[in-house]
């Protein structure tokens, strides 16, 4: 069995809320956004873990803490068994070559004034890995690998001269140029057109095999997970409510939230009928999360105990964990 590449233990990020003048005058209590509130999981070498949840559930914040782009309020992140917070500054620099990120929006993450070639080889320059000639060669090779061809022609182009699909490829090439082994892909296809999405997804699967990569694949779109993820972690209000093998979670979703999310995925078939009603209401505020289980205000199974105790993840099957005592008890009987 493969060993864990990344292990996350009880990770928390509580952002202090900007206080207004009036709050200060009245000496009101300091408020926090509990963006991530106690998240634990691990990712095996060569595995793709999908981190799925609605907007504001804390997916990006989790990804940024794992890459140490953000210092957590508390908790640990281990890379190959060693805490990344124990790395010195220069050690961290080295580690950054190994842990890379692909952002959501290729428009925002590419500088309009930097040519494609410059943008892709930029990380090589930061890490001073090669001389100029070598760097160009490495860059051209990776460009061909991600389908930016002919590379020598596109090398000198600027972002606005490329199509959306090509721009997304540039962002991927830039992440892979330092030869990482772990990549956080934060909604890499959310902005893309349907036809481009399929292309990028296919490319990411191909590159994973070719470069022996491990991904944390962040998305709110469960349907795309099916084509790339091995396991899924479902996030709600800063917590993981269910985690397990993809096929298992798809076939037997246990947490009522997972079931709801799966059911809301648009199905390209006019004869398809939803099995659950769409829940009313919206994701509550992460400033004042509801007491007990964070999903209880929207849950059709909610009982008194759900409002009193914060549920822990419990095993419901092979490698499958769920934070819902009501369903866990149901399953056992």
């Amino acid at each position: 069995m493969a060993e864990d590449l990344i292990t996350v233990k009880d990770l928390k990020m509580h952002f202090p809320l900007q206080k207004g003048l009036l709050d200060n005058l009245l000496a009101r209590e300091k408020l926090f956004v509990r963006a991530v509130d106690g998240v634990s999981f691990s990712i095996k070498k060569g595995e793709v873990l999908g981190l799925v949840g609605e907007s504001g559930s804390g997916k990006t914040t989790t990804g940024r803490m794992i890459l140490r782009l953000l210092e957590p309020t508390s908790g640990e992140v281990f890379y190959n068994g060693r805490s990344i917070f124990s790395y010195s500054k220069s050690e961290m620099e080295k580690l950054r070559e190994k842990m890379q990120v692909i952002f959501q929006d290729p428009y925002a993450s590419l500088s309009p004034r930097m040519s494609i070639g410059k943008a892709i080889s930029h990380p090589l320059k930061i890490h001073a890995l090669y001389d100029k000639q070598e760097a160009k060669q490495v860059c051209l090779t990776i460009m061909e690998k991600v389908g930016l061809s002919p590379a020598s022609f596109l090398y000198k182009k600027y972002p606005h001269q490329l199509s959306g699909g090509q721009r997304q490829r540039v962002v991927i090439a830039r992440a892979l140029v330092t030869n990482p082994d772990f990549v956080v892909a934060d909604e890499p296809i959310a902005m893309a057109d349907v036809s481009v999405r399929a292309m990028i997804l296919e490319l990411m699967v191909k590159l994973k095999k070719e470069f022996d990569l491990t991904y944390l694949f962040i998305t709110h779109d469960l349907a795309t997970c099916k084509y790339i993820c091995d396991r899924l972690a479902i996030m709600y209000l800063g917590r993981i409510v269910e985690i397990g093998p993809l096929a298992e979670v798809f076939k037997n979703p246990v947490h009522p939230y997972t079931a709801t999310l799966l059911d809301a995925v648009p199905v390209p078939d006019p004869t398809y009928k939803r099995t659950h009603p769409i829940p009313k209401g919206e994701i509550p505020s992460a400033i004042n999360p509801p007491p007990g289980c964070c999903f209880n205000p929207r849950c059709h199974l909610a009982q008194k105990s759900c409002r009193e105790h914060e549920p822990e993840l419990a095993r419901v099957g092979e490698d499958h964990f769920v934070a819902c005592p009501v369903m866990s008890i149901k399953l056992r009987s």
Partner: protein
Amino acid sequence: MNNTILDIQDLKVEFPINIGTVRAVDGVSLKLNQGEVMGLVGESGCGKSTLGFSILRLLRPPGRIASGRILYHGRDIVSMDEKEVLKLRGRRIAMIFQDPLTSLNPLFSIGRQFVETLQTHEKGINKKQAILQAESMLESLGISKERLQEFPHQMSGGMRQRIMIGMGLILNPDLLIADEPTTSLDVIVEAQFLDLLADLCRQYNLTIILITHNLGNVAQLADRITVMYGGTLAEVGLSGDIFHTPLHPYTQGLLASIPNIKLDQPELSPMEGSPPDLVNPPTGCVFHPRCPQVMDICTRQRPPAFQKNGHQVSCWLYR
């Protein structure tokens, strides 16, 4: 028989730019029946929004309608004078956009924006009546009336989107053009919104043009679907027919490239190539450079719309 509410005839819309002319809509003919939901789908840049904007004569400069007619209840919008168009806009034909934050005024409360919309269009309505109308509109959108006092930034994306549709419907139009109304929303909120749209459609006998690049979104809601490609119509048909027996090779490619969570579809098959350059569109059928079934005639002659098994399909395979 169904009443035709909108009859678009050979519409051409152009954007003259420095390097030539973008033929954003290039000979589109389409009829809409009263009370139906028409899904308008296609890749980015194929002309969906341009078609939507032309119906309201809201094209951004340098865009202009080069030729064709848009008959709304039999009257041609293209040749109307500006005053008449103003009367239609908002009152009879409403449009909602992708990003509600850009179309709601951040400085005014939701209530004030409803009142102003009502008072500019309906002479003689007083403030109290206007507020009452706004309150009942919010109710049918599933939002409590207290929230009229709030400002746009205090609301979630899903709620703002519902407010937008409320603003669109408050003047009781019969045609609603919704341009990617759910693109910025999460799946659950999106599903809630589409349910709401379906309800409103029944309740108000609304005709809806639902623009989206995601075929999956319109499957359950749309009665019919129009697939656009490179400024032209590739295929028009009943929703069920388009999904189950797509005829145009482009529609087939589009369907194969969207994920379906309910199917054991092991892989996606992305479409080769990229959308056409609308300044120098390919000769013949605009799709021919990407078409897996391309024939000799496709490179030379533009296919007209053929009728086949209830579909209207612009492809030489069905001549």
